[in-house]
């Protein structure tokens, strides 16, 4: 253990002051379920760490039809909220009970693939993230937060403080496919949202996890769905395009080849679930 200072700020302003004073060498940690294993194993050797568990960023509230999720809301609380069932489903399919009691929604956005399942559901819901620095808070779409493998839009001195999930139209489906029934890394994770009018798709989101360097949207596949009549033909076409445009990788969980096959299969299944579910929920 190389840590000489472990800070536990009691407020956002205290956290921002620490970050400003200590600079980028300050390791920021929330639930610790990703950072602590690296520290325990000596892979990460930080000297200064800031834990956010007590920084007051754990508000979870509905306002004006939006769901505001503070960055340090635990996955257990996300699972128990009832405003957005698709987020409960994503939380239920992430890690184990003990880990969910510690891991945070904000931290999950920093978890490299094949982790980061919560972000997949959040992408399908057009979530924005609040990035707060000394000059104030800016709100950017979650899709713009990711800039590459383990890189993001956070600037020096900024913290991810919360997420805003707007009220959006349509039906949603979430499927995580892993090698075990639960507590398992993702082969592929799919979240879809489809809004329809008279059987015609007016708006579609297809979000994928373990399908690229970060959770991402299959935009070309979304365009295939838009304006179509949701049915077997459109679903197959969109799934094929999603598999084609994704950038899966090989790791200990699955090969790139297999992941691509599974992306096609599970995008189709998720869309099928919405189609079979009928026009209205």
């Amino acid at each position: 253990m190389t840590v000489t200072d472990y800070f536990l700020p009691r407020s956002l302003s205290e956290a921002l002051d620490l970050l400003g004073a200590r600079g980028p060498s300050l390791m920021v940690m929330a639930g610790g379920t990703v950072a602590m294993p690296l520290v325990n194993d000596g892979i990460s050797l930080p000297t200064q760490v800031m834990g956010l568990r007590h920084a007051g960023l754990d508000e979870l509230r509905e306002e004006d039809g939006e769901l505001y999720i503070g960055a340090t809301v635990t996955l257990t609380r996300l699972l128990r909220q009832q405003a957005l069932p698709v987020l409960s489903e994503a939380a239920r399919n992430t890690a184990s009970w003990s880990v969910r009691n510690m891991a945070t929604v904000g931290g999950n956005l920093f978890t490299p693939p094949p982790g980061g399942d919560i972000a997949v559901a959040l992408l399908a819901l057009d979530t924005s993230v609040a990035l707060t620095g000394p000059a104030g808070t800016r709100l950017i779409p979650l899709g713009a937060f990711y800039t590459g493998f383990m890189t993001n839009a956070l600037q020096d001195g900024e913290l991810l403080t919360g997420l805003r999930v707007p009220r959006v139209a349509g039906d949603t489906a979430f499927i995580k496919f892993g090698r075990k029934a639960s507590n398992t890394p993702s082969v592929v994770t799919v979240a879809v949202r489809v809004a329809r009018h008279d059987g015609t798709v007016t708006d579609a989101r297809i979000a994928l996890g373990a399908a690229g360097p970060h959770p991402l949207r299959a935009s070309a596949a979304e365009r295939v769905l838009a304006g179509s009549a949701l049915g077997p033909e459109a679903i197959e076409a969109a799934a094929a395009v999603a598999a084609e445009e994704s950038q899966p990788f090989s790791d200990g969980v699955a090969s790139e080849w297999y992941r691509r096959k599974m992306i096609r299969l599970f995008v189709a299944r998720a869309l099928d679930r919405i189609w079979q579910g009928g026009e209205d929920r």
Partner: protein
Amino acid sequence: MASVIVNFELCGRDVEVLVQPMTTLQSVLRSQLGYTATKEGCRQGGCGSCTVLVDGEPMLSCLLPVEDVAGRRVVTLEGITPIDGLHPIQEAFLESNGFQCGYCTPGMVMVAKALLDHDPRPSREAIAGAISGNLCRCTGYQPIIDAIEKAADRLSGSGEQTGGR
């Protein structure tokens, strides 16, 4: 590096420890306080053998800086074991052969305790879900699920012996 003092409640007792910054709760429990029921397994959050209850919720003590539990209520296996006997969950594990080597048992029992506190009559599926973060390399899990079912029967007051499964 400057040591820090941390106070928390451990198994109903106030404790104060002097630690290097960001020492894990697991290490404090075992090395400083002599509470060795909590095991050290993977130190990655992957095996569940270090599970303790923090304010009644199962958490992994290997991933928790002890500073994070300052002022909170920590319960380990020692805290639920009566001085002169066993907790009904432990008895059920014993009767159902819910362990062989025993390394996972403290974590399993703590998760079972939290589960039964939340849900006195869980389904086998709910039990399997609750222990999905606790690895056992001996039993194949079925005897553990049997044990938790049996403990649920007894603790929720039906008191009936369900017979061998």
